[in-house]
């Protein structure tokens, strides 16, 4: 058990496939409370990542770095710097740790610092802050992921484009939380990491 270059790449390719499959759904979620591009943004980025990773990097750190730089330079919008920062922090942390829980915790800290969002602001931070402790406690389940994503529905957005809607942002799942949900699902489905 433990993170390797191979299972890390499997995880990310699985995430990439989920994004591609749900591209339209993510954009529809974003149309309701944002500008309708989240699926397209993530798809553009993850296609580029999978493409880059087809030449296998040597180390786990190199894989994380590669993902980070690719997302940062292809996604744009709000999700680009956030996912980019997440993987950049994992790259840094991976120099001293290969514990997935610790890595994800570093990523979450990076996301919060980059975007200034706190839990209950109706952003991807909501999903990450619920699920990272579950990973650390070896308790991540599909149910927990689904409920963390669904829980964003009733919140009023305080950060990101949805915040301009105020109260009217209620009743819609946050698109970045949904895509983050896919990242944790992909992790759960990848043999040997957790």
């Amino acid at each position, binding site marked *: 058990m433990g993170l390797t270059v191979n299972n890390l790449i499997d995880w990310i390719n699985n995430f990439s496939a989920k994004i591609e499959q749900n591209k339209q759904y993510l*954009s529809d979620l974003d*149309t309701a409370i*944002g*500008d*309708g*591009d989240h699926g*397209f*943004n993530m798809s*553009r980025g993850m296609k580029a990542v999978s493409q880059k990773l087809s030449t296998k990097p040597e180390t786990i750190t190199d894989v994380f770095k590669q993902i980070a730089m690719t997302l*940062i*330079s*292809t*996604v*744009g*919008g*709000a*999700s*680009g*710097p*956030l996912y*980019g*920062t997440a993987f950049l922090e994992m790259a840094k942390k991976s120099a001293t740790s290969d514990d997935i829980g610790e890595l994800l915790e570093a990523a979450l800290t990076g996301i919060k610092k*980059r*975007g200034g969002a706190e839990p209950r602001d109706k952003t991807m931070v909501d999903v990450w802050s619920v699920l990272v402790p579950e990973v650390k406690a070896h308790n991540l389940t599909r149910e927990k992921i689904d409920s963390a994503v669904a829980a964003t529905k009733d919140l009023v*957005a*305080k*950060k*990101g*484009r949805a*915040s*301009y*809607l*105020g109260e*009217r942002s209620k009743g819609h799942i946050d698109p970045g939380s949904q895509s983050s949900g896919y990242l944790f699902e992909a992790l759960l489905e990848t043999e040997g990491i957790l």
Partner: protein
Amino acid sequence: MKKIINDPANVVPEMVKGMVRSYPQFITKIEDAEAVMRADKDSMTGKVGIVSGGGSGHEPTHAGFVGNGMLSAAVCGEVFTSPTPDQIYAAIKAVDQGQGVFLVIKNYSGDVMNFDMAKDMADMDNIKVKSIVVDDDIAVENSTFTQGRRGVAGTLFMHKILGAMAQNGASLDEIDAAAKKVLPNIKTIAVALSAATNPETGKPGFVLKDDEIEYGVGIHSEPGYRREKIKPAKDLVSELVGKLNDEMHLDHSKKYAVLVNGMGATPLMEQFIFSNDLLDKLAEFDVKPAFMKVGNYMTSLDMAGISLTIFEIADEKWLGYLNQPVETIAW
């Protein structure tokens, strides 16, 4: 969706090429980036660089305002999507003359974060970078707990003033101080008759009925604060001026610059009818603009509607900066 394009995935690079090839006297492409800079590089020698940018679809903003006396460079993100840090960084690097670079950012999560990361990259390269985040759209409630207000058409005035100062040799610190002073004086509010259709999604951001309008929309078809039946131009003016006045308390002893901005699909005829009513309404406050522009400056693709910006000229020098000649595609 009926548009004069080739592949929706290529609209931005094709547009950028079209701009620099049509107007080589003003702008040139920055290598390996969807970004443009002044063609007349000599005009920047020894000056602070002013870099702006954001998602595309707001043409002539931003590239149309690159040129002598205004922006040094503009970064063109995907449609309605903020540009990536590497692109912004490429623009910073291309225009830096050792005097530092000032970034004009519109207040969207994405823009703020991507420009911040670009700044970090410039820091590592020892390029001095400062920035301002424009948040002129009063349609959104202001609050320190949220993202705050959006940056919209009023950004044009920020570009013009900082561009003139840089041209006149102001230092990075002077520009930074002026930007901070200018910012709270710019207020904007919009009304839409129809939303924009993004070429990639092929769908409009929202749908208004044949007799409906919406107040307070953003420049990416973000919904506004109220939807109602279409009204005469006079009444639209009353609503928008009313909102602006609540914020800035129009005062006949003060000077103002005004921008009546077409959102893309609204004919100039309608913009000038609106302007006529606007000047009547301002006269009720005993206010006559010291500077005025009417036209498509900060568009939202094919959205129909108008935004109204009022800028209080709190410093007499600003009027001079607004009137200073420039060489750009669109000012």
